[in-house]
């Protein structure tokens, strides 16, 4: 008789589970699989400030010293 565990899936520790970049609350709530198509849609737009705006802000800060 084989000892138990040799042919079964090896146990993994919590440290082995990669959760980088995953919001565990969101994951636990099950939003991602349910609305993945909407997330793809929302990602189609990229909102960034104008370079001019950033330069203007930095200029203001430099003037303030």
């Amino acid at each position, binding site marked *: 008789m084989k000892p138990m565990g040799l042919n079964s899936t090896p146990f993994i520790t919590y440290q082995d589970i990669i959760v980088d970049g995953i*919001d565990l*609350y*969101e994951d636990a*709530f099950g*939003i991602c699989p*349910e*609305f993945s198509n*909407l*997330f793809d*849609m*929302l*990602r*189609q*737009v*990229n*909102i*960034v*400030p*104008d370079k001019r*705006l*950033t330069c*203007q*802000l*930095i200029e*203001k*800060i*430099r003037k*303030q*010293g």
Partner: protein
Amino acid sequence: MISDYELIMRFVKGEQSCFEHLIHRHKNKVFAYISLYIRDQALAEDLFQDTFLKVIQSVKTGKYYDNGKFISWVMRIAHNLIIDHFRRVKQMNTISNDDYESDLFNSKKLSEDNVEDNLVKNQIHKDIRMLISKLPDDQREVVILRHYSDMSFKEIANITGVSINTALGRMRYALINIRKMMDEKKISLTVN
């Protein structure tokens, strides 16, 4: 990578460029949040600048205590400035936020595509903006913070002053509402 806290400390000690580094690091998140919330582009730009100026003021007067959440703190300042703005508008009772029409979305490298693709993409961007703008304020805020400012739900709860469960619930309702509006208006939002 140098941490936000280290950059702040070095800025306080006189290294001006460290704050500029922080601006470049976080500007997209802050701007996305403000400009999706405030439809008047000029006003959104003012609030964007005011947010960072207020951050500097607070840092210099020792009001920032590091808990590893610099960006959450900045977003909270932006959130408060937006609320202050709407309070002022409400008191003046003169300006409606819906009166403005502006191009909030800077699309990715549109010039590289052909005209037809650009038109389709522009329409999609307009539709997405419209769908987001039609959401109730609390739901809209969660969608913007999560998807355009890349905040976690823990951070969103902290910024908006509600529990994580409430923030998650708002997100679910927002997405259900977006889906419903898309069905009603027969909107299909896919490129290609």
